[in-house]
């Protein structure tokens, strides 16, 4: 092959070399922004440290001790509340730990896999919290109010409980509690669509 032909090939190679670079850079920038948001979300959702699952599991264990005392006293109401808190706190702690382990075991070799993995994580997170988020919030709020049991009149207790249930019910029905997760999942889905299209 002559030098002229060789050079024509190089010219063609050069033209091809960055045909996709502009898009690649756009994707890189988009992914970097998303990665920052994912990091913030993980931190807020307690998915970056084992402290959160440990905290929930400790709360569940503490409830075991309370339930033993309640059984001895024959306090059925406290027994019911604590039994619910053991189930809910325990499952929340185990779920967080499972999600963290699952995410750490995932190996992302490219942007597409990264986005798909994050969407999967958020889907698990939302599915779990849609189902168990409201009861956990109600039990937590009830336990909080119960700690004032001795110092409050019955009508004040009832009023506080009512307000708490209204606020929690409203937040739950409007999906506000997991607004960030839904928002992030929708951004990840759009980014993945963009990546597939281009």
């Amino acid at each position: 092959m002559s030098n002229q032909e060789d050079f024509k090939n190089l010219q063609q190679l050069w033209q091809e070399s960055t045909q996709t670079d502009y898009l690649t850079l756009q994707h890189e920038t988009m992914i970097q922004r998303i990665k920052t948001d994912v990091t913030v979300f993980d931190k807020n959702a307690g998915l970056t440290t084992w402290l959160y699952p440990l905290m929930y599991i400790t709360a569940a264990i503490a409830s075991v001790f309370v339930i033993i005392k309640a059984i001895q006293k024959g306090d059925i109401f406290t027994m019911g509340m604590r039994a619910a808190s053991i189930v809910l706190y325990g499952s929340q702690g185990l779920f967080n730990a499972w999600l963290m382990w699952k995410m750490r075991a995932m190996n992302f070799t490219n942007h597409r896999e990264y986005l798909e993995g994050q969407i999967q994580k958020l889907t698990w997170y939302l599915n779990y919290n849609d189902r168990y988020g409201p009861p956990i919030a109600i039990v937590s709020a009830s336990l909080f109010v119960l700690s004032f049991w001795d110092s409050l009149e019955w009508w004040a207790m009832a009023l506080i409980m009512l307000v708490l249930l209204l606020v929690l019910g409203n937040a739950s029905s409007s999906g506000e509690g997991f607004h960030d997760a839904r928002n992030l999942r929708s951004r990840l889905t759009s980014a993945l669509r963009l990546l597939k299209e281009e």
Partner: protein
Amino acid sequence: MTNNTNTYTATSREADFVRLLEDNKARIMRLCKAYTSSREDREDLFQEIAVQLWKALPSFRGEASVSTWMYRIALNVSLRFSYETKRPKPSKERITWIEETTPHPHDDATRERIEQLQRCIASLPEVERSIMILYLEECSYKEISEITGLTETNVGAKISRIKDKLLGCMQKSEGGV
């Protein structure tokens, strides 16, 4: 009326600028790639070129072709950027970072040749690199002469020398693989 005229001018300038960038983004990106060693630098340089083109757009009178005018600005900005940042020349690791993180449409052999070509171009001295980039972009001797300020004869002589150098570098790299 004055306001309307101003609005029209501003809108028209913006539309011209967007069209200019759209038509030339791949060329500018190739140029940025030859003068930078990291993604951050490449983005900075691309942005700096875009800013300078935007600033220079009102003074473009069509005396030279749009591509000549654009290359002149883009090369000046790239050379200044390269001197100011004084970054190390692109190494294999740095150049291939995009390919490492993103699926690339080319097959392995083509990708390897593209990387070799980028390495060989990056190894050329600044002026020779500028001339070779313009030549690879299929600019004529006349255009290269207008952009770089060299005479056409000088451009011709340099290109012939740089071509041999580049082909030699490519053959050496392929032999070494």
